[in-house]
Every structure is written in structure tokens, then in C-alpha cells.
């Protein structure tokens, strides 16, 4: 992108001659595929959602072309919708923090191995991706079920059965398990670039190990942490498969609510669903901007 924008900056200097025009044409040609892609697959659907969110739901799941703000008023005034946002953001936050706490030490450990081991370990982190996420979630169901693997083991050693599946805990386990690689990889990348001699320099200058980590290593690997957190947080908040399967459809996340509004409720309410999706996007965007602000602050 940066190299592409350079000719554009020079264009005014060389006045309006054919060369500049040709440059501009070339630039447009280069940008066109990307722009086309963004407009058709990103901007246009978003406009449709925006439009729908201001329309009135019809009695048979259709949409009536009558402009209204009711959908947004419902979202911000009814407790049950506000609660849905709070709950999902909370689950997303817990998942992200736990992933971070597991992934950072893990990534650090992997970086410090010999190259051969390092590749093997990274490979192991990636292996779960070879199996469909849905199948892996079903595997968790088998592990956690009332007659499942864990409970069979417990009973074999004479301990009472535990209710593991269909709880918020099970949903969190499933989410953390599923999202962990997305946290490990970016952190691994940034720790890999980290110059470990800086830690020696810090201790030479009298910093304790904890201090050296907090003041030197953590700030320098922050981009990885930030990227990982965003990659984990966003999909988690919108999840609905894991909460349905591992939570027995009892743990209601925003994704579940959206899915119901669009397809399951009678009649489906697309306008309210659209408004909900947009507000959700806005909340996430604000959260992410805030996050990037606070994390890049460290650089200055």
C-alpha cells in the first residue's frame, strides 16, 4: 500500500500531463480488484444491514418499507437486550484473558527451544486446525458428558459424577480451547523477534527479573499480544455454535440471539437483528480502537 501511494503524492508536482494521468490509470487498475472486493463483499452488505435496521418488521417475517427508530429504541431500553451485550462481552473478555495467560508462557517456551523442537511444537499447536472445529466441539461433548470420558474415569476411581457439560464452564473451556492457537501464533511471532540480550542489559542495569519482563519484554512484544487479543476477542463474542453445543443452549450469547432473530423466532425479525448486529459491530470497533490506543501508548 505504501509504495502504491507514493506516485499519487508526486502527481500534483509534475502538473497535469499525460504521464501523471497514465500513472493514475495504472494506480486505479492496481487498486480496482481490492476496491471491488471491498465494495461488493463488505460495504454493500453493510449498507443493506444498515437499511434494514431502520425498517419495520412485517407479520410474516417480511420487511415493511416504513422508516422507524423502534429497533434501536428496543435495543437500548429493554434490559434483556442490554444484558445480552454485557454477557457476551464478559464471556469474550474472560476467554481472551485466559487465552493470554496460557499462550504467553507457551509461546515463550516454544521460542526458547532448539529450532528442531520449536518447529515440532508449533506444528502441534497448528494440528487441531486440520480437524473441523465443529467435530472438535463434539469431541468435547463426549469428554464432558454425563456418561462421558471424565465422568467414567471419576466413577472408576469411586468418585461421584460431576455435571460438566451444559454449563457456562463448559462453554468457556470450548471457547478457550478453540481460540488458543489464534493467541499463541501472533505472540510467538513477536517474541521470536524479541532480542533477548535486552533482558541481560536490563539485569546488568539492576532490574529484577520481574521488572525486566514488565518494563522491557512485555512492551516490546505488545503488538503480538494486541493482535492475538483482537483475533480471540472478536470471534468469541459472536460465537453461537460452542454455546449451543457445550452450553445445552442455556448459555445465551449474542450470536445465539442474532441467529434466533433471523431464523428461529416466529416471525423472524430481520430489522431488529440488523440493528443488533450493527450496534454490536460499533461496540467492538470502539473497544478495539480503545485497545490499540492504550497498547500503542507504550511505544511513545
Amino acid at each position, binding site marked *: 500500500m505504501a509504495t502504491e501511494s507514493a506516485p499519487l503524492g508526486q502527481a500534483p508536482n509534475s502538473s497535469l500531463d499525460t504521464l501523471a494521468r497514465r500513472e493514475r490509470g495504472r494506480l486505479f487498475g492496481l487498486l480496482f480488484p481490492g476496491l471491488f472486493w471491498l465494495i461488493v463483499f463488505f460495504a454493500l452488505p453493510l449498507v443493506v444491514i444498515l437499511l434494514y435496521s431502520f425498517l419495520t418488521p412485517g407479520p410474516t*417475517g417480511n420487511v415493511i418499507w416504513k422508516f422507524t427508530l423502534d429497533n434501536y429504541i428496543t435495543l437500548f431500553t429493554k434490559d434483556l437486550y442490554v444484558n445480552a451485550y454485557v454477557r457476551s462481552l464478559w464471556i469474550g473478555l474472560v476467554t481472551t484473558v485466559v487465552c493470554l495467560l496460557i499462550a504467553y508462557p507457551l509461546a515463550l517456551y516454544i521460542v526458547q527451544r532448539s529450532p528442531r523442537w520449536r518447529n515440532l511444537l508449533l506444528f502441534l499447536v497448528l494440528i487441531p486446525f486440520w480437524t473441523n472445529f465443529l467435530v472438535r466441539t463434539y469431541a468435547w461433548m463426549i469428554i464432558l458428558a454425563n456418561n462421558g470420558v471424565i465422568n467414567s474415569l471419576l466413577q472408576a476411581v469411586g468418585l461421584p459424577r460431576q455435571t460438566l457439560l451444559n454449563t457456562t464452564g463448559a462453554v468457556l473451556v470450548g471457547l478457550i480451547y478453540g481460540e488458543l492457537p489464534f493467541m499463541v501464533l501472533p505472540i510467538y511471532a513477536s517474541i521470536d523477534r524479541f532480542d533477548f540480550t535486552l533482558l541481560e542489559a536490563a539485569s546488568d542495569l539492576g532490574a529484577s527479573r520481574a521488572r525486566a519482563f514488565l518494563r522491557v519484554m512485555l512492551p516490546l512484544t505488545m503488538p503480538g499480544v494486541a493482535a492475538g487479543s*483482537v483475533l480471540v476477542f472478536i470471534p468469541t463474542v*459472536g460465537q453461537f455454535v460452542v454455546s449451543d453445543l457445550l*452450553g445445552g443452549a442455556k448459555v445465551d450469547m449474542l450470536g445465539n440471539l442474532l441467529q434466533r432473530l433471523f431464523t428461529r423466532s416466529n416471525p423472524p425479525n430481520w430489522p431488529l437483528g440488523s440493528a443488533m448486529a450493527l450496534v454490536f459491530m460499533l461496540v467492538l470497533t470502539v473497544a478495539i480502537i480503545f485497545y490499540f490506543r492504550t497498547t500503542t501508548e507504550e511505544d511513545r
Partner: protein
Amino acid sequence: MERFKLLAVLLVVLLVAAACGSSGSGVTPTTAPSGSATEPTAAPSNATEPTAATGGDTNAQPTTASAPAGDELQVDTSKLSKELHIYNWADYLDPQVLTDFEKEYGVKVTMEVYDNNEDMIAKIRPGNSGYDIVFPSDYAVEIMWRDKLIAPLDKTLLPNLKHMRKSNLDLYYDKGNLYSVPYNYGTTGLAYDKSKFSAPVDSWAAVFDKTQLEANKGYVSMLDDEREAPGAALHFLGKSMNDTEPADLKQAEELLKTQKAYLAGYDSSNVSRRLASGEIVIGQIYNNNALQARTGIEGDYSGNENIAFVIPKEGGTVWQDNVSIVASSPNIYTAHVFMNYLMKPEVSVKNTLFNLGVTPNIDAEKLLPANIQALYKEGFAPDDETLKRLEWIVRNDKTVAFTDLWTAVKGQ
């Protein structure tokens, strides 16, 4: 410059998130519990798309004229179209039936599937859908004929209507069956494992009364459906499941919220499997799924002899799926012929054995294997006495209140 970088990163992240989101939704049909009362989860998957290509030479002259006269339909083969497109629930129609129809009439039949009425209506509504035949549920039939999405029927082309049970015809959503003929019907009640209960279950109290719930904590399930679960609560309270009085709804909501702590989960698609395997001991369920829990599904899971199905004394739900002809269909005549074919007892029984529902076709019922007929009698199909306790789910502008009620219960 920093700003732009930030924005670019953001955009990329959002795109990635969007991509993840869409791949997520790509799997919904298989994972999400179905909320529809009419979705049959019968039979080993596959084969929803019959390979019409096997139909062979479409120009072959069928010899239906040789069929015994009487009230059989005399099909004018010259008026038949070359193709017929049907849009149906998944695993609802025996693919063999389509192959047989192709062989007999030389009409190439293609079937596509949907998993709720709303999706189907959304596809038919703009017109020109390309489908000739659809299978709308009770209330959907009403929406569709009011909106002129389905065509009026020519009864002279449907002599096999005579095989239908009276109580399944002339229903509230289509008086006089001007637009639809019944295909399959069913009920919603409770299925339970007899070996885990000292006395037969006959009341919704089994899943709403606290002391009874305590005995089976973590082994109870309710349908993941905004009308069925609250409907059961309303029945337990002695109300109609179509009651929209705010005070009654509030009471039902509280009941469901209390119940939630005792549930294994809300589930519409795997109740039969879970009952059969003992993951739950009692659950709200559609009668066809209850029958599956009892008989098992070949090549999938084995049945459980102890499973019983009951419509609680306070009441239950009845639903019926129907066959209708899409208004914009260019093949109205062929569609009638197909419709009439589906009502033939020998054909109808094949579909019933395939989806394990209850057939509205009296003469097809007689052809069912003895064991299934016995199970029907045992309670898996409603008798006349039970039918009186059943309610149709009504949808109107007041029943949107159930969406909020359900959101509140689920979000607790």
C-alpha cells in the same frame, strides 16, 4: 500515518472477523438445534437429492392408462411436464418414491430441502423460485394462501384425498382444503425412560414441579423453541399455549427460569438420541423423535425399550405438514399428479416409514408393519381422546411477545 496504519489493521481485522463469522454461519444448518416444530430429524442423512439422471429416457411412454379404472386418476401423459421441482423438509420423503414416480410417469423430479418454514417462504415470496411443490406447516399454509403464494387446487385431479382421515382435513388454516393436502402430522409431548420413574408420567408437573425436577436434575430437556417450551409452561398453568395475557406470560417466564437450573439443556434436534442413550431421562419432544428413541435409527444408534411417550393431561401441541403447489409454477397439472401420487397408500406408507411421523392417510396406516402400529396404539400417535387435548400453535401480531419471553428465559 500512524492513524492510517491503525485503520488498515482494523479493517483487516474486521475482514478476518467477518470471514470467520461467515464460515461459522456456514455450519449452522447442521449444528443449530432446529426451532421448528415440524423438522423431522429422521433417518440416516444422505440421499436428499435423488439422482434424477437415473430416471432414464424421459420420453418413454408411461403406461398408466392400464391402471384399474374406478376412482383412480386417469393421467393424461401428454399434459405432463418434463420436470418437477419440489422443495421439502430434509429427510422427510423417501428418495425411492421419487425414483418410482420418475419411472412411472417419465417426469424428472428434483428435490431441494429447507429446515424451517420461514426460509421456504422467503424463497417462494419473490416469485419465479423455480419450485413447483412445497411442504408448508399448518400456519405457513395460511400465510401462503393469504399472500397468494400457493395455487388453488383442482380436486378432480386429487381422487386419493379419499384416503385421508377426516380429522386431518378442513383445518383452521385452510378450510375446505382449497390450497393444501395433508402430508404428515404429529404432536409435542413428553418422552421419558420408564425404568427411571416409579409411576407413569401424565403431567407437565414432571418437568415444572420443583420436587420432581430435583429427582432428575441435569437429566431433563426442553425443546429449544420459543413457542413449545413456553407453551408447555402455559399448559402446566392451565392456560392455552396461545395465551398472550402479560400476567400469564410473566408467570410462564418465571416457571421456565426456575426450571432452567435443572435442565440438561434446550434441545430440538438430539433429544431422541439423548433419551435412548440415557443422557437425559425425560424431555419435551416431537412424537416422531420419541418413536426414534424407542426404535433407534439403523446405522446410527440403537433404541431404548423403556421409552414411553405421553401427551400430558394439561395438553400438548399438534402440527401438520402439507403439500401445496407454488402459485408461480408452470407445471400445475404435473404437480397435481405428483400430489395425488403421494396420497396413494402404498406410497404414503413408504414416506411414513422413512420419517416415522404419523400419517394422516388411514389406508396407509393399515399397511404399516405390525410393530409400528402397536407403538402407535401405545401412545406414539394420538388417539381420538388425546386429540381433544391438543392445540395448534397460532401466530398473530400478539404472539411476537413470545420472542421477548424466550430471550429473557434464555438470557437468564
